[in-house]
């Protein structure tokens, strides 16, 4: 009667909802530490980015773990959110002096733009079977980087000015900004002179919102449809689940959250260039997701936190840094002891093909 033992899902529900109190407790502890001056400068500098990467990991887990599709360009959506967020915030400095309100608006705009980006990518790709999403998102990440690298944006009393520096000859002067106007994005230099309005509290709230949205999503009619498509596409279709529609909903939700994380991230730095959101960043987030466990949101949070802070914390160890990093990777892998981690490649590539392809017997 071994099959009668309680399902994994109800324990996973418990685990998922534990994330809320856990994240809150950690947030409170760190805030206390910070206020009593126990955190050094470099640690303080990591607080907001870590929140952003946690949101990135949870949102990517929605695509990879819940929907079962590989995305190799999640940083591209973060980039969309970051630069639209920065442009929004910088150009609203005059009209919306309240930093918090401006941050909220910037994150909302970043979310919308990233949602739209996800929709455009999903439209042709999600109707195909196979690993096309991986290829297209990979290209998307690179394209966004190239576009931002030749983007020059400024703002003055007449509004927003934008030129593409395709030839490499244009400079901020070509924007013809009026007196008192400021450049926001300077091509390959990226966003410069950004007024940093991101805060650790905002990061915490964003994590909570992300958790709330994603966990409720998974446990609803829509989320079940997405899970069903992942588990068995033909059976789900035979039950009347529209593949395109539900994959699109999940994917757009995932990119929306990445856009929010990006906006917060962009507004945490004086200057930030498009190279920050390159292929390595996409892979880094994918590593968080895979090591934390596919579909395991708490795992994503823990993996993102540890693996993001670790390289910084180990900076003192100089040469041994990467060795330590490798050891921790292995330990995390053993700790999560997820069968899905063990045969990651089996899971991501051949298994899905065998489920989807061929005859429906």
């Amino acid at each position, binding site marked *: 009667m071994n099959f009668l033992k309680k399902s994994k899902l*109800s324990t996973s529900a418990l685990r998922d909802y534990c994330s809320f109190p856990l994240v809150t407790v950690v947030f409170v502890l760190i805030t206390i530490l910070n206020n009593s001056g126990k955190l050094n400068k470099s640690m303080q500098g990591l607080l907001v980015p870590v929140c952003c990467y946690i949101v990135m990991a949870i949102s990517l887990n929605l695509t990879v773990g819940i929907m079962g599709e590989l995305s190799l360009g999640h940083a591209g959506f973060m980039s969309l959110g970051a630069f639209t967020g920065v442009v929004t915030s910088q150009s609203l400095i005059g009209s919306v002096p309240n930093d918090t309100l401006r941050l909220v608006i910037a994150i909302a705009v970043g979310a919308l733009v990233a949602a739209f980006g996800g929709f455009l990518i999903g439209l042709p790709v999600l109707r195909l079977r196979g690993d096309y999403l991986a290829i297209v998102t990979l290209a998307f990440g690179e394209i966004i980087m190239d576009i931002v690298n030749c983007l020059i944006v400024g703002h003055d009393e007449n509004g927003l000015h934008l030129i593409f520096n395709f030839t490499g000859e244009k400079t901020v002067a070509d924007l013809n900004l009026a007196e008192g106007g400021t450049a926001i994005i300077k091509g390959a230099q990226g966003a410069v002179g950004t007024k940093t309005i991101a805060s650790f509290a905002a990061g915490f709230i964003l994590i909570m919102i992300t958790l709330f949205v994603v966990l409720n999503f998974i446990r609803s009619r829509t989320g079940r449809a997405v899970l069903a498509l992942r*588990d068995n596409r033909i059976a789900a279709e035979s039950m009347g689940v529209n593949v395109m529609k539900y994959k699109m909903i999940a994917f757009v939700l995932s990119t929306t959250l990445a856009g929010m994380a990006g906006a917060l991230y962009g507004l945490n730095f004086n200057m930030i260039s498009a190279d920050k959101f390159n292929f390595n960043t996409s892979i880094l987030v994918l590593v968080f997701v895979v090591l934390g466990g596919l579909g395991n949101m708490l795992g994503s949070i823990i993996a993102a936190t540890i693996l993001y802070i670790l390289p910084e914390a180990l900076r003192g160890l100089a040469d041994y840094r990467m060795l330590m990093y490798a050891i921790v990777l292995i330990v995390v892998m053993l700790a999560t002891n997820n069968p899905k981690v063990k045969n990651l490649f089996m899971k991501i590539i051949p298994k899905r093909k065998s489920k989807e392809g061929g005859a*429906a017997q």
Partner: protein
Amino acid sequence: MKEFQKGKMVPMPSTALIPERDLGKIPVLECLHLGIEFGGLKAVDDFNFTVGKTEIAGLIGPNGAGKTTVFNMLTRVYNPTHGTIMIDGQDTTGKTTVQLSKMGVARTFQNIRLFTDMTVEDNVRVGMHNQVRYSTVSGIFRLPPFWKKEKESHNKAMELLSIFDMQDLADVKAGNLPYGAQRRLEIVRALATEPKLLLLDEPAAGMNPNETADLMENIVKIRDEFQIAVLLIEHDMKLVMGICEGICVLNFGKIIAKGTAEEIQSNPEVIKAYLGNNSMEG
């Protein structure tokens, strides 16, 4: 195209097969000159078959005869290359698998295709996808429609699971169920879509004689209670001969016999097709 028109003009007199009580009503399934080719190979050819509104019909034949292929065409997993399928009087040409589900065709699979990582209850709830609906936004923000409809789908799922006494297994992961229970869950999940026509692909495969006897009873019970039609593929002749009213025998993609259990059992063509394969005595 030619085949299609032929189908319209010369309907096969197959209605003679459907039970008397269904005679005045539009048949739930009508296949006219249905056929499919895979790279020149005719897997199913000129398949004409009608299933009455509350009939339990059988589709039998040796391995590789094309039975599952017929199911795949009925649910539009495959697009037929010839002929027409009418569901409850409606043409299904150009429809998708999802639309067929909405039109009232539900199926189980020969190689079980459950959502293995989901619970038994959630499997059934996916079956109710188009029956118990609320928006994604209601789901994310836990608005009143979410609570109302989740309760409704939970109650409905429990009710359906009770057909096979499976309520206690509601929270078990579907992949952890024993084989027989997985087959039964597939039937429950299909029923959750509120079908007019239930397609069962070898429902008794891998079941012991006791389980099979229970299954037979339950198939009849399902038909009586929900007033739906059942078309089943089965190698277990005891089951087929025991509950099927109209039986169609397929061999190498072609119908070699149609009729009642007695007619089929005494048909020399059928006996020949099954020669060396004693499953007819099942």
